[in-house]
């Protein structure tokens, strides 16, 4: 049978951070499931409407948009069906030599965020509130964008702390800026950062495709966990133009591995020890809604969140030979050494 | 104004030929941000079929305006203009016009500039080419057929404009000081050529000039306009025999007519 063409978008630039996806391609996991994957970067624009409009088959998304729509009584015909970044990827980071040690120390300080529009803001407000710090009262919050321009703000002391994702920390370290993350309250680590959505029609009409796609995702996660370097390298295989100059390759590989390490703290976040790829924990949804409600983003916390996601395919996702996948990944790793 | 001075200028005798161009009681006033400039004031005259009528008048009296009215480029604010009995509401294909300024297209060669009316009217340009080259020979510009207008002198540009006005063989020819930029000799050659073309084709011509001898040499009738706003002061018939030649200019009747017209001008310049 002809392979199913699938357009799958992630809501940021495709970088080595997503090398696990390319690893899935190079190891043939998608092809094995009869899927012809077109990986699309969709930044600066929300992915969910495109799935709702069937321009995309699958996409990664945060939960916030849908929760807000739900609170307004609007229905979007998409469901989360595969939990990808299972835990929070956000951190509070300070310079290594900063006197700040805990979140409670942030009182009276200056906080740099990417933009006021970022999805992590409600959560950060809640975390700070828990520590008795009122947003924009006990702490000054300034948007400073992403990348080098933002880092300089921390470096030069214009902000005391940055509230970014793990990968940004790794990049800063690679750029020679020593940063340290503050201990993150446990409750919030359970909130997923990014999961896959599909149209309800797809779920109804093509459950098999969802199952196969999720299985490929699960396999690539296992593989990338097992062979970090090969995983990072696979990105250059799929996108040769991004391969650095030979003298920079080792450094770039190191960064790639660190970015993946960072991401996999979240992707591989199974606090109860059982690897169940793609599954959602109802609890984490409730915490999420509560945080947003406390932060004033949502008018109330009693939302029918269960209508937003489904765990129905989880057993299918996990039906594969874990050891064979690991062996395949290790073999790839061995080839590169 | 000393009206007595031109009593000897008789009014025009109505001709037998049918009227080709009829200008009846035409007035036009330009509106500009500086105010209103009346250019023509209740002007009336006819050009009979096949007649050669010249218009003389001081600078700024409305001669070019009259031409634009006759060609349909402007519409009169009062009065009416008819061509072969029909009201003129827009430019017509059987009219040829030579403008006071050459107005050539800088991006077309001399030949192509001459062909403009043919192409504009959607006629067959390949046949027109022959005729265009012939007309360029007539205006002594054949070697410059492939040149561009900015490579020509002022007089040469004007001659291209003359050739262009003739290319589509119009029944009525409107000419606005076509020979003004030409030297005496070229001008005389052109005058003779124009007379030849006119006599052999039976075109009607409305010819604006500021040269009295030129007007007398070429015309059946000469209209003299007053200073702005142009009103008809005199209409003078010229009944010198055709074809007229250099010798005609020495004819006492020619000289007398020219000097009478000159006096009419002098009188005009005097304060009323």
């Amino acid at each position: 049978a002809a392979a199913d063409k699938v357009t799958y978008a992630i809501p940021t630039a495709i970088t080595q951070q997503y090398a696990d996806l390319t690893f899935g391609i190079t190891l043939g996991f998608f092809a094995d499931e009869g899927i012809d994957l077109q990986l699309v970067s969709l930044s600066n624009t929300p992915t969910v409407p495109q799935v709702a409009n069937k321009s995309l088959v699958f996409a990664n998304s945060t939960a916030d948009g849908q929760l807000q729509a739900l609170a307004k009584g609007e229905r979007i015909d998409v469901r989360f069906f595969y939990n990808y970044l299972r835990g929070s990827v956000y951190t509070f980071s300070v310079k290594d030599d900063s006197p700040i040690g805990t979140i409670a120390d942030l009182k009276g300080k200056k906080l740099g965020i990417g933009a006021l529009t970022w999805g992590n803001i409600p959560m950060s407000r809640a975390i700070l509130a828990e520590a008795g710090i009122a947003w924009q009262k006990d702490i000054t919050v300034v948007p400073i964008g992403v990348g080098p321009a933002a880092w300089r703000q921390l470096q030069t002391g214009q902000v005391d702390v940055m509230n970014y994702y793990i990968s940004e920390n790794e990049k800063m370290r690679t750029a020679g800026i020593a940063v340290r993350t503050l201990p993150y309250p446990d409750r919030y680590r359970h909130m997923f950062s990014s999961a896959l959505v599909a149209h309800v029609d797809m779920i109804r009409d093509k459950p098999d495709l969802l199952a196969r796609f999720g299985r490929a995702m699960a396999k690539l996660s296992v593989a990338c966990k097992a062979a970090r370097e090969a995983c990072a390298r696979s990105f250059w295989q799929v996108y040769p133009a991004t391969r650095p100059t030979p003298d920079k390759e080792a450094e770039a590989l190191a960064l790639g591995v660190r970015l993946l390490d960072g991401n996999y703290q979240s992707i591989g976040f199974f606090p109860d020890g059982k690897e169940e790829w793609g599954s959602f924990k109802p609890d984490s949804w409730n915490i999420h809604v509560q945080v947003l409600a406390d932060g004033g983003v949502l008018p109330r916390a009693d939302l029918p969140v269960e209508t937003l996601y489904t765990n129905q395919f989880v057993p299918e996702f996990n039906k594969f030979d874990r050891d064979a996948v690991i062996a395949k990944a290790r073999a790839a790793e061995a080839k590169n050494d | 104004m000393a009206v007595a001075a031109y009593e000897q200028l008789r009014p025009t005798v109505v001709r037998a030929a049918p009227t080709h161009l009829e200008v009846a009681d035409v007035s036009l006033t330009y509106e500009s941000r500086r105010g209103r400039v009346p250019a023509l004031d209740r002007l009336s005259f006819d050009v009979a079929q096949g007649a050669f009528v010249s218009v003389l008048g001081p600078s700024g009296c409305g001669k070019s305006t009259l031409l634009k009215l006759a060609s349909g480029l402007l519409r009169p604010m009062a009065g009416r203009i008819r061509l072969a009995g029909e009201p003129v509401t827009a430019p017509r294909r059987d009219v040829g016009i030579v403008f006071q300024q050459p107005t050539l297209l800088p991006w077309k060669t001399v030949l192509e500039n001459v062909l403009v009316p043919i192409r504009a009217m959607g006629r067959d340009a390949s046949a027109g080419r022959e005729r265009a080259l012939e007309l360029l020979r007539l205006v002594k510009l054949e070697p410059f057929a492939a040149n561009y207008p900015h490579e020509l002198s002022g007089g040469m540009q004007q001659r291209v404009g003359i050739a262009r006005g003739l290319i589509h063989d119009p029944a009525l020819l409107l000419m606005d000081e076509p020979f003004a930029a030409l030297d005496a000799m070229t001008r005389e050659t052109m005058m003779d050529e124009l007379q030849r073309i006119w006599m052999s084709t039976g075109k009607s011509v409305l010819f604006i000039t500021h040269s009295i001898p030129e007007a007398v040499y070429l015309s059946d009738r000469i209209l003299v306009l007053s200073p702005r706003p142009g009103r008809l002061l005199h209409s003078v018939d010229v009944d010198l025999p055709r074809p007229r030649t250099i010798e005609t200019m020495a004819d006492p009747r020619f000289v007398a007519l020219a000097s009478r017209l000159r006096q009419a001008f002098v009188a005009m310049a005097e304060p009323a």
Partner: protein
Amino acid sequence: MMEPRHALDVVKAVVPPLATGVVIVAVWAWATRPGGLDAFVLPSPMAVLRALYQGWIGGTLLPHALATGKAALGGLVIGALAGLASGALIVLIRPLEYLMMPLVTALQSVPKIALAPLIISYFGFGLESKVFTVALLCFFPLFVAAATGMRAVDPRLLDMYRAFSASPLHILLHARLPAAAPYVFGALQIAVVLALIGCVVSEFVASTEGLGFIIKSGSGELDIAGMFAAILSLSAMGVAAGLLVKEAQRRIVFWS
């Protein structure tokens, strides 16, 4: 002007930009000297040169440059023709201006990035979306140039054509269009630049290839040198396209 160019002319045309280039690289090298700007804000010229060399000799940049170039060219051609035609239309049918001008301005004032979701809905994630975005961007300068330039024609030439019973369409093609040519070429200069930017921006938003994709992933991965290599390639494409437009103008608008 039509004679074969002299060696001196070539020297004149080549030396100054080269000299400028040298000055810029020198300033750049100075700005990125040890202790100057951080390498992740602005990498050193050497690092970028190396990345450029690798990308082009290794052939990895070529397909991306081609992808961007193709979409930019396609969009430019479509947008420019549509702009010209629409500009001509409002010159031909005056009342249309009141209809089209505000509409077009309104549409153009919307950042294309904000329209991306809509565009993607209709055109998908492939070439078509990029071409459409580029066409949308290139439309406007050509539209304005056509409308302005075709009105700037010498009114005496219009009178002349009218006197010879030329149709408005004939006048448009033979008098207004040539008169608008310098405007149109000026607009093309702007449009080629907008085409490249538009293409890259739509590659930022959604893409799998193109220089925009490389710039974006380069910035995400801290391969800032690679990102600047892509940016410089883009600039070079812009300059080359600009020179092509200039040369075309020199040949076509010979009379001015």
